[in-house]
């Protein structure tokens, strides 16, 4: 009986701790909200990325449509090359443009996509060839 009580107490403690972890994973962090759906990669060039960081949001009309995957420097064009993962659910015209915006007064930088008018959509091409979005800052 002593052993069973001990097991019960330890089990309750461990369960409580795991519930706390789960609570933090789902409610406190962005794990639940993160869409892990299929994405396609798009390149964007910027003169100055300011404070943009990898994993920053890509929004269009205020809705998150993707994430920044990687930020590099392109020494051919002397511009910042930003690789974006866009959700495959959302298609954008080929001549869409990207802007680096700031949310709020002290908020993080994110990328705003403004759709263009082209009939053809941005799509991922074979390796090393992506559609590129010209970007202002």
């Amino acid at each position, binding site marked *: 009986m002593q052993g069973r009580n*001990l097991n019960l107490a330890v089990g309750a403690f461990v369960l409580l*701790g795991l519930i*706390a972890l789960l*609570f*933090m994973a789902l409610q406190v*962090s*962005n794990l639940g909200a993160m869409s892990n759906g299929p994405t396609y990669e798009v390149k964007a060039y910027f003169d100055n990325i300011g404070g943009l960081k990898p994993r920053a949001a890509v929004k269009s009309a205020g809705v998150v449509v993707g994430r920044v995957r990687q930020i590099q420097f392109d020494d051919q064009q002397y511009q910042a090359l930003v690789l974006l993962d866009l959700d495959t659910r959302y298609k954008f015209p080929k001549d869409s443009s990207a802007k680096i915006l700031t949310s709020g007064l002290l908020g993080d930088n994110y990328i705003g996509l403004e759709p263009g008018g082209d009939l053809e959509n941005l799509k991922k091409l074979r390796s090393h060839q992506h559609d590129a979005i010209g970007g202002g800052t």
Partner: protein
Amino acid sequence: MSGVLNSVAALGALFLQFVSALGGFALLLAKILARTAAILRRPRLIAAQVHFLGNHSLAIILVAGLFVGLVLGLQGYYTLRRYGSEEALGVLVALSLVRELGPVIAALLFAGRAGTSLTAEIGLMKAGEQLSALETMAVDPIARVLGPRFFGGLIAVPLLAALFSAVGVIGGWLVGVALIGVDAGAFWSQMSDGVDFWNDIVNGVIKSAVFGWRLPMWLSCRVTNQNQRPMALHGQQP
């Protein structure tokens, strides 16, 4: 001149002592890790230690976490209100708890609550020569006595830190949303926007796990170190 030399020598002795303590720590860690299989074969001993280290620390962790969250919520609100960004209260409370305060304060409270009783327990075993008696009976005291405490701490402290952070977030919510009236939607959405699962929460868990095994290890290392005789516990000079 010799006074200067003496103080340099004292510094050297102090440093050597430090290095040998570090070496003893590493050796004990290696010994415990080498016996992992033998220790894990008796999970009842580990469960008893999780109960002793974890369950008994639960009350103080929960109360402290709640109050830290309440204070963070209140003070954060008054600071953020100046900049008109009370909505950021959630992310402020959650990030400071998950990244720093949770692991560190939980480990400190754990050291105060469980560390002291661990020290007393193992110290008494050493002073009563129970450890030597175990060895005489061909029972490995590292696998039988230290190992379960090592793994007990490794399991209990991350759970305690997670509970601390979760209760703290609820405390921040109590003050910020329920009492002061920050918008609940903004509170939670800004929080989940600003807190990353891998970078923030998993790192916090790893941090507290490191705190968790280090504390029982260090204590047992200090107490069982062969060079430090247990006589001091009897009030005698070694």
